[in-house]
Structures are given as C-alpha cells and as structure tokens.
C-alpha cells in the first residue's frame, strides 16, 4: 500500500513511513504500517471514520505530536529530502517544531487551539507566526491583507478573535497555517462548521495553493465535493492504510471505503408546507415573540461599529436578532439555517435563558421564562452546544451524562436514564472514558447523550452534524426522530442544508436577524 504511487515521479516534499506509533499512556498501537508521501502541488485526501487514527497521523506529519514527546514512533519522517529515522528509543532524533512548522502548516480539528490568546485582533493573530520569523511590517501587512482576502476575513480583521463565529474561527485557523507559505498544508476536517460559502471559499483557497505548488493534505471523514478533485485518496481504518489510489478507482462499488465515511447528501427540494402528522395546534412547546437581541457593546464592539456604521438603534450596538418570531409544537422538527455569523447560536441560547432578549419574549410550554433561572428552564429545554468542549466538563462519560440528572428525576431513575442515553448514542462501552480523550465524533454524541438523558420538551441542537462520521450521523438522525416521535419539539441549527431538509418538517432561515421560511 503506497499512497505515493501516483506521484512517484516527483520527489516528495513530505513523506512518512510509520511502522508503528503508540501513545505512552496507551497499550494499543495508534498507527501501524502507514506509508504516505506528498509531492509538490499534489492533493491528497486521507479518509477515515472517527477514531481511525486520522488526527494522530495529521499531527505526526505536522510535528504537533513530536515523536518521543507523547508517544513512541518506529519508522521515518522525511521533509524536503532529509529523512529522520525513529525506533522509539532515547537516541531518536529531536524535531524542532518551529523549523518543521515552516515547511508544514497544520489546521487542527478544533480551530480554537490555534489561537495564541494574546493577540487582540484577527489581523494580529494572523501575523503572529510572521512576527516570530522577524518579517518587516510592510510585508506582514501585505501578507495579512492577502490571506484575509483569500479567506473572506476582510471584515473581521479588527475583530477580537475570541468573538468570531465557529465558521469564521476555522477560516482564521486556516489563515494562520497558510500565511507563512509552507510547502505542505495539512488540514484536519477543514469543512466542519463551514457554511456553503465558506466551503466554496476553502475550495478556491485549496485550488490556489495547489496551483502555486503547495502539497495539500486533507484529513476527512466525509467525501466533500472538493475531495473528488484529489489526486490520491488514502483510506485509513483501525490505524492502518486499507486502500489508496485515485478517487475514480475507489468509488462506492469498489468496497474500499468503509461505510462510516460520509458522502455528501443530495440537497432535496425544499418542503413548502409542514409534513402531515405534526399537529400545529395547542400551546407551542417553544415560542419566540418579536425577540430583539444585541450584544452589549464592549470597547472592541464600539470600534467595529464605527467602521461598519450603526445598524441597530442610533448609537446603540447592532441587533443580532430583530423581531424574531418562532413557534415550535410538540413532535415538530424545525431546522434553522443561515450563513456563518448570522446569529444562529445566539438564537438558540435564548431558548433556555442563557441570553435574554433586549425586547420581546420567549415562552416555554406557554410560560414566559424571563424571570426563571437557566437551571430551572433547563428542565424543559435541552441545549446541545456548537462545541462539545463547551458542553463537556466531567471526568468520565458516565459522570458527564449523569450531571444534574438526579436532581431532575431522582437517583434511581437517573442511573437508568444515563446508561440508556449512553447506549442510544452507541457509547455504552465508553462509560468510564475521559470525554476529552474520545474521538471528535464520539465527543459530539456524548454531548448529545447529556441532552437526551434529560428528555426535555424542547431539544435545541446547535450544528449537531459537525464532526460526526457516517455512523454518528445515523445515530443522531435516529435519536432526533425518536425524540420528536416521543413528543419533543426539536429545533436544530445547521449550515448543512441537505441534512436540514431531510430531517426537518420545515426549514426557516435566519436572515438579517429575522426568521423567514426557507
């Protein structure tokens, strides 16, 4: 199995021959018999389900996981023709991550980990790597402008990186990786949380980089349309390469791709009216009446406002939601779509009172929640956060699901509910594992289990499909439909129009702060 066959003629800029890689705190081998090589200007997709070893391979290639530090590598890494041999012993060569980083840019699965946290604007964050290499300011300004234009971040340059939306944050992380112009770019699940425009933008960036001779490697658990343009697909399963070759030879019929790898869902035609079977009478489980919302203006916000011109009340901060109306009945599934940064997550946080409207009201089962503490509304409203790391805080998966359950249903029923919720998302065997050590897809499902275990009347899901592999998506789909069938009102926010239309009874778009039928 050699991924480099197609590009053997060219000398690879980056190559790896991994006989085995084992984490120090784990007995099982994370990777074995993985040989990959990437020539200048080549485009490779490494496909694998969650937990297949993709992220480990990506981090090894980018020296974010230097051999010897967290695990033992037997094999070699080769960069621009110079080969480093490792046997897992103390005499192994040491990698200088900064030197390596100049040649291999890396975008991790969680884009927030890229941020230096000490830079106050997106522009400065982009420039961080250039500053460290001592580039002149004029050249830095040009590079920042170029990169921002490439990624559609121009309007965010003066914004605080901590206040970007999920999709914008991913673009910033990509920008930080490519701004120094590394000959190799490795991206781990770059399409997660990008809207259609963002995915198109990313595709353009990749094509541009390829044309300039950059070797691009994308690690993914889904076959995004862009990946059909790759020269080579490498399939990773159980930590080893199970197939590789040009995409044409690896289609659905070849049997090379494991079923857990997601294929893009065709976008079904919009459903104009509610599907039959969902009564829209009686008291809605959730109702928003003319909700306005604006984030309080901080010093940064005031600056932005001056630049962009006031869009809210004269002199006030801009409204994220303006007169948003929504009614969701028990058993109904409503999808909310909209581009990155439209305010979708902001909308969901109103459902349980984490954010309070500046005008208008939110009613849960007919009762205004304005005076109720979040913890009390949470008995009726379950919220799945966009980032699992914002939701998970306990030491084990079981503790995570059990948090607060005993208070809700009593200790005896709590244990039963927690186990059942874990089982419903396929995590029964992972009950004692640390949430942070689970693969991304499992983290998302665990977060979902914490919400499902409470059996809320309103289920609010923020980008639930992001980071899920095919198996995970099937589980999500089944649990959402089941919850609705049992009478929960489900609101899911997603940029994945295909999924939205396949599962929801109706779809609304968040457009200019208003909810309009999509």
């Amino acid at each position: 199995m050699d991924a480099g066959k197609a590009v053997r003629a060219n000398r690879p800029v980056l190559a790896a021959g991994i006989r085995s890689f084992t984490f120090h705190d784990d007995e099982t081998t994370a990777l074995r018999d993985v040989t990959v090589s990437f020539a200048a200007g080549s485009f490779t997709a490494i496909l694998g389900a969650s937990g297949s070893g993709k992220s480990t391979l990506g981090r090894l290639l980018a020296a974010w996981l230097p051999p010897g530090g967290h695990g033992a590598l037997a094999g070699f890494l080769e960069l621009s023709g110079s080969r480093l041999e490792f046997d897992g012993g103390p005499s192994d060569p040491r990698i200088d991550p900064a030197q390596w980083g100049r040649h291999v840019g890396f975008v991790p699965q969680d884009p927030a980990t890229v941020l230096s946290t000490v830079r106050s604007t997106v522009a400065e964050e982009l420039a961080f790597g250039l500053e460290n290499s001592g580039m002149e300011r004029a050249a830095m300004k040009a590079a920042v402008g170029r990169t921002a234009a490439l990624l559609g971040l121009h309007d965010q340059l003066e914004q605080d990186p901590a206040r970007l939306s999920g999709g914008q944050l991913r673009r910033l992380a990509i920008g930080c990786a490519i701004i120094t112009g590394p000959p190799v770019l490795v991206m781990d699940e770059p399409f997660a949380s990008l809207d259609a425009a963002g995915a198109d933008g990313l595709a353009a960036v990749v094509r541009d980089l390829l044309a300039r001779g950059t070797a691009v490697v994308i690690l993914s658990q889904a076959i995004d349309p862009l990946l059909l343009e790759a020269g080579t697909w490498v399939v990773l399963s159980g930590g080893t390469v199970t197939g590789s070759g040009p995409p044409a030879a690896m289609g659905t019929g070849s049997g090379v791709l494991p079923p857990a790898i997601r294929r893009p869902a065709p976008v079904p035609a919009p459903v104009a009216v509610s599907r039959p079977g969902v009564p829209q009478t009686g008291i809605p489980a959730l109702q928003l009446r003319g909700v306005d919302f604006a984030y309080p203006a901080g010093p940064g916000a005031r600056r932005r406002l001056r630049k962009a011109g006031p869009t809210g009340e004269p002199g006030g901060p801009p409204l994220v939601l303006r007169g948003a109306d929504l009614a969701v009945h028990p058993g109904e599934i409503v999808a909310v779509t909209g581009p990155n940064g439209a305010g979708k997550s902001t909308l969901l946080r109103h459902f349980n009172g984490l954010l309070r409207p500046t005008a208008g009201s939110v009613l849960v089962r007919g009762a205004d929640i304005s005076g109720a503490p979040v913890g009390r509304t949470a008995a009726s409203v379950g919220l799945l956060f966009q980032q699992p790391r914002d939701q998970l805080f306990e030491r084990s998966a079981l503790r995570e699901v059990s948090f607060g359950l005993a208070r809700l249903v009593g200790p005896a029923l709590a244990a039963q509910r927690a186990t059942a919720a874990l089982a419903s998302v396929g995590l029964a065997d992972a009950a004692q594992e640390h949430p942070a050590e689970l693969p991304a897809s499992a983290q998302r499902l665990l977060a979902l289990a914490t919400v499902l275990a409470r059996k809320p009347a309103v289920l609010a899901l923020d980008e639930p499909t992001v980071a899920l592999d095919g198996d995970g998506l099937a589980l999500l789909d089944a649990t959402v439909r089941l919850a609705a069938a049992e009478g929960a009102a489900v609101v899911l926010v997603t940029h994945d129009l295909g999924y939205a239309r396949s599962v929801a009874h109706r779809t609304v778009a968040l457009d200019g702060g208003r909810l309009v039928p999509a």
Partner: protein
Amino acid sequence: MTASSPRTAAGPDRPGRLNPLTLLAAAGSTAVITTAAGSWPLSLTVLAASLGLSAAGGTARRVVAAAAAILVPLSLSLVMLHGLFFPEGTTVLAEWGPGRVTAEGLGFAGRRILQLGAVVLALLVFSFSVSVPDLVAALSARGVQGRFAFVLASTLTLLPAISARARRIRQAQESRGLVVTRGLLSRVAAFRLQAVPLVLSLVEDAGTRSAALEARGLSNAGPRTSYREVPDSRLQRTARAVLVLVAAAALVLRLVQAGASA
C-alpha cells in the same frame, strides 16, 4: 502623570494615543517622586490628578474599587499603629491604658496614607488604562524575548481567560439544571462544582495550545517584529528620559538629605 490621558490609551485606532512605555514611565516616576518627596501637598495633588485622569478615562469606578481594596486595610492599620503609639507625640487627644491618641501620630498616619494612596492610584490608573497589546508590542520591539513577552501578556489576559472559561462551564451546567441565583451561597456552591472542571480544562488547553505556539515559532531565537504599530515620537522618548532622570534625582536628593540629617 503629565499629559497622559488614559482615554487615549483605550482605543488602538485613536490618533494621539501614547506609547505604553511613556505611560509606564509617567506612572513609575510619579510613584518614586511622591515617595521620595514625602510632602503631603504633593501627595494630595497626585491623588487628585490620578482620580481626575481615571474619571476622564472612564476607569474611575474600577480604579477606586481596586484602590479601596488595597488602601482601606492599610490605612486602618496605619491609623491604629501611629495614631495610638507614636513615641514623639506630645499633644494627647485621648488615652486608654498604654495607648494614647496624639495629634502628631494622627498627622503622621495621615501623611503616610496620602503618600501611599498617591502611589497606589498612580500605578492603578496606569494598569487600568494601558493597552496590553500595545505594551507587549512595545516590549518586543525593544528586544524583550518573545517567550517573556508572551508570559507577560498571558499573565495580563489570564484572568479574563479564566473567567470566560468558568462562565462557559457554568453555562453548560446551568443548561443541565444547575440553578444559580444571585445569592452569595448559591454562587459559592456553583463555583465549587466548577473548580475541578475549570482547572482540568485549563491544563488540557495549555497542552494543546503549546504545540500550536511552538509550530508558529514562539521559541524562535532570532529577532522578531511586531505587526501592531505602537506610536512613539521624539517628544515621548525625551519625556521618558526626563521622567526617569527626575525620578532618579529625587531619589538621590532624598538619600542625601537622609544622610545629612543622620
């Protein structure tokens, strides 16, 4: 604290904002001169000026709150100590056993409090009005090691970062039924639930972030540049030099006086 209006330090886009080192020099020399001079009219002037500046800069509330936290216990102990037990005191105002409240003692305590207050306020006005990114950029431009500048910046951004993380954890817990009310007890109980996850997540975060920072060249030995433009001028450079010299002179003068009177 001469021409330093803290308001100008808040907005990076504002023209005419001062170099953070100028602000630092102004605050530092003010503190040194006030301490060295030991003159209550000067202390009072500095105090009033600092309050005025922080009011103009919109930081008055935070400055006063922080100053009160530092100065109230200190002032009480100074009044207790010098007001009651001042050996040179002759004008006795009241007497309880071994303790005598003397006018001289109270006067001495008052002068000390004014002096301390002036120093504390000058430094607080600086720390609440300086732009941290500017300060870090100014320091790196002067060859301060990238790692050190980073540590300094993270120290200054640590508290907001921790409180943001704690808020995220609390929101996750509230979304799963933790009821936090405005009462102190409820908040303390909630914090107890957040403490362990908070520490664990900060540790884990530090681990993953360090790989990113290393890959982006944080530890590079060579020279580094700064994207952020920190305004500076010949006038400011001169002002800084003068401020440092005056502070040094005040210190020397004080030492000479002390030596002469000894």
